[in-house]
């Protein structure tokens, strides 16, 4: 069976997912299998990897070579952070964030996971739930990926045994429960032979669930976004000042969550001033209503002083916090460690403000989940910290709203992005 029916599919949705696992788990083979069996591999790519397979003295096609990257990586036998791959079926378009394993795993997985709707966690059926599987599950829960799929791979090496599969599911579920992770699907498979990836194969008759591809195509993702709280960070103020648009003031940005209608009462933060939506404009004209994640231009009834960095919300509903102090889970990304004496820049929605990390509550050992006391943070560390900022941020808890709960830290001297943060509520 082929999933690509060779028809254009303009109506499809977009699903972004991440694959977590090391080369040993058959991750590259799984991605290769998804691309190959959905006919997303092109002939010139296939012939190039067939040649390479032969050069290395192997027969057939090593699908893992498809995800092999840059010259620098091939020379050193390592893989550089995140690569993005694309494939489509008539139902959906998919973006895979492919993150390699090994030491920098935390940083890479958090990066790839930050935009993912779903994570596929690979487990080698021979080895069962390992420390790294727990680490992957923890990071998925930290970044708040809405859907998890546990792919128990290499079933061919365990005689496609149902008992082996059931044991692994039980172990993983116990751990996931501690992390408050739900919405987990378990699929037994052999990426090497193609069983239960795109095609069912005939080796797993006892498994009644869906194939991985079937799940990726059909899982419902449109409820994952926060549709309750309208959040509109102003990106750009449009004042053309031409003859026919003399008084025009449009506030341009993307609706990060919730929805808005013409006539809605809105509040501008941080000032707290209020007005009503006059028009919702898109290139094609004006519309009555807009929903996240649309990019639109809004005009309002009153003349308020609005600039980039301000946030429009709807009156009523859960209000965001306007604060100069907050707690966050921080993932340190830089090889230069955190210096608690130094000022950093926080970029949060469309605001950039100066900040200091005023305290480290604890660092999490991602393998044991134990909390440790530390006085600095190194690359790949995850910690709960306190931050103080010079100008107030208008934020929600990350758990409630990813867009208004996430931020990055920038080193003012090097301009590098040194950490990623997720705002947590003060009560927890």
């Amino acid at each position, binding site marked *: 069976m082929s999933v690509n029916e*060779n*028809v*254009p599919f*303009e*109506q*499809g*949705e*977009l699903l972004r997912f991440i694959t977590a696992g090391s080369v040993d788990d058959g991750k590259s083979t799984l991605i290769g299998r998804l691309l190959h069996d959905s006919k997303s591999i*092109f*002939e*010139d*790519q296939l012939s190039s990897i067939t040649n390479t397979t032969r050069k290395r003295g192997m027969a057939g096609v090593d699908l893992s070579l498809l995800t*092999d990257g*840059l*010259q*620098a990586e091939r020379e050193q036998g390592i893989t*550089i*952070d*995140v*690569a*993005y791959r*694309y494939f*489509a079926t008539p139902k959906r*378009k998919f973006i895979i964030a492919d993150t390699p394993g090994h030491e920098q795993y935390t*940083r890479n997985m958090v*990066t790839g996971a*930050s*935009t993912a709707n779903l994570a596929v966690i690979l487990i080698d059926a021979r080895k069962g739930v390992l420390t790294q599987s727990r680490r992957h599950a923890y990071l998925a829960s930290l970044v708040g990926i809405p859907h998890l799929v546990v792919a128990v791979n290499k079933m061919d090496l365990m005689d496609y045994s149902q008992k082996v599969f059931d044991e692994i599911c039980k172990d993983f579920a116990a751990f996931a429960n501690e992390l408050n992770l739900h919405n987990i699907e378990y699929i037994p498979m052999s990426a090497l032979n193609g069983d239960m990836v795109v095609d069912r194969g005939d080796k797993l008759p006892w498994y009644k669930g869906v194939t991985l591809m079937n799940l990726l195509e059909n899982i419902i993702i*449109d409820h994952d976004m926060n549709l309750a709280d309208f959040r509109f960070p102003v*990106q*750009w103020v*449009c*004042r*053309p000042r*031409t003859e026919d648009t003399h008084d*025009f003031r*449009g506030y*341009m*940005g*993307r609706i990060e969550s919730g929805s808005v209608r013409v006539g809605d009462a809105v509040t501008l933060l941080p000032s707290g001033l209020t007005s009503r939506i006059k028009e919702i404009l*898109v*290139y094609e004209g004006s*519309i*009555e*209503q*807009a929903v996240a*994640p*649309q*990019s639109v231009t809004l005009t309002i009834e009153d003349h308020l002083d609005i600039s*980039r960095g301000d946030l429009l919300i709807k009156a009523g509903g859960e209000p965001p916090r306007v604060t100069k102090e907050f707690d966050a889970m921080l993932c340190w990304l830089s090889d230069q460690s955190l210096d608690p004496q130094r000022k950093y820049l926080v*970029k949060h*929605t*469309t605001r950039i403000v100066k900040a200091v990390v005023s305290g480290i509550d604890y660092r999490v050992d991602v393998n044991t989940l134990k909390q440790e006391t530390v006085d600095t943070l190194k690359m790949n560390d995850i910690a709960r910290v306190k931050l103080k900022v010079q100008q107030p941020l208008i934020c929600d808890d990350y758990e409630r709203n990813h*867009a208004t709960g*996430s*931020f*990055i830290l920038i080193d003012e001297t090097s*301009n*590098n*992005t040194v950490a990623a943060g997720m705002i947590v509520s003060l009560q927890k």
Partner: protein
Amino acid sequence: MNNHPFTHLDALESEAIHIMREVAAECANPALLFSGGKDSIVLLRLAEKAFRPGHFPFPLLHIDTEHNFPEVIEFRDRRAKELGERLIVRSMEDSIKKGRVVLRSADQSRNAFQSVTLLDAIAEFGFDACIGGARRDEEKARAKERIFSFRDEFGQWDPKNQRPELWDIYNTRTHPGENIRVFPISNWTELDVWEYIGRERLEVPHIYFAHMREVIRRDAGLLPVCHLVQPKEGEKIENVMVRFRTVGDMSCTCPVESDAVNIDEIVAETAITRITERGATRMDDQTSDASMELRKKEGYF
């Protein structure tokens, strides 16, 4: 949502608009690279969607190898005029005259040398950000490139030292002399681009549609006969129905055999095509497994 589902094209479009507005707001002096090719045609529509009724907060910039197809250059000038936006053209001929580019022969492919002229233009105007139409599905070096891709003061890309890019919070900061290449359609595929061109009814240069053309078969590809490409001994000129999947330097951009005379037919062909865009059409990417990576490290788009 206005009674139509939010499709993957809507998602990609909104992402690209968001990226362009971030560039406009945070970069001091950006430019948009416009070549007259299909990807940069899509960029122009996205810029209209991002900034109308205002003007674009950046000029358009084209690095002209002067080996471009004349109909593409005509289209480039006309489109910029229709939009009422400022177009800056910097020519490689000037870089050659100044001795900044030295070619081995007059008809040599000029693609690799565009970097020099581009970096000169960046220095001349002090651009701190250049918006380009590159996509991650084009090539494996691109697959690992960030949407906001940082270049040092020599215009070089260091794949091992890229800024992490999380959520859609972009770090646009640069020191003087450094710049950022920004790729709003990073997550688009060739098929997405054609579907979008169809949906938005965008005009593209005629050479994207199937037409009869004199070609030579060379190294398993077709080369268009022109003043830069003439048959060598043993080669013969054929008349073949072809279209171009990319438009670039005439000496190294190969058309593919095709009957697709309108956008719908191109979309249908693209959906079932079995060869990558660059694999089919770019001689300069086939010289080695890492050609694009090497060019990018030297400051290429």
